């Protein structure tokens, strides 16, 4: 069964450093989502792509976060500079035109 791939699985960094996360969606899925999940809470959407275009990034803290999906396939989420409050699980999901989203394993970020 096809899965969403993410790397790295774990990332430890110091505050003020830059970090980047990568996501490869299920082949053929045009829609890609990045979520942030703080411990004890449900995932919250950061950004949504349709192919290479951003559909919604209203919840993305644009002063430090950026996301791209240059060729409409894989995607990178970057944080620069990282802050202590950014410690969380970062999830990627993808979907076809239906509403069902399939999630990757996530990247657990710890900012020291």
């Amino acid at each position, binding site marked *: 069964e096809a899965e969403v791939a993410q790397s790295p699985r774990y990332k430890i960094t110091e505050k003020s450093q830059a970090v980047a996360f990568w996501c490869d969606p299920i082949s053929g899925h045009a829609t890609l989502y990045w979520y942030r999940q703080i411990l004890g809470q*449900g995932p*919250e*959407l950061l950004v949504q792509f349709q192919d290479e275009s951003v559909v*919604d990034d209203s919840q993305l803290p644009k002063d430090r976060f950026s996301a791209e999906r240059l060729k409409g396939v894989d995607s990178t989420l970057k944080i620069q500079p990282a802050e202590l409050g950014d410690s969380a699980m970062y*999830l990627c*999901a993808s979907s076809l035109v239906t*509403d069902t989203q399939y999630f990757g394993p996530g990247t657990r970020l710890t900012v020291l």
Partner: protein
Amino acid sequence: AQSVSQHNHHVILSEAASLELGCNYSYGGTVNLFWYVQYPGQHLQLLLKYFSGDPLVKGIKGFEAEFIKSKFSFNLRKPSVQWSDTAEYFCAVTTGSARQLTFGSGTQLTVLP
């Protein structure tokens, strides 16, 4: 904006007990409803979904959920839980054409052997 409420943060049951996890949403229009499960150390997996039709939907591993429009609810049920059902369960909703998931805060289920 829509919101999703899960009433129980942590539920502890013994094996073979029946399970019902509450989920309520706030949105007056057409909704699509989901339950996702996250087993320890694993990624979020779709348990079941409701788009339209029969309000009683069946998912994987013996789970089912009932959509009650008048109560804005989509409660998850299982008649007899197993130790392997220990996991965190998330209710989620999409509304309109946005196709963006809004999640509840999750319910941690612990099943004692």
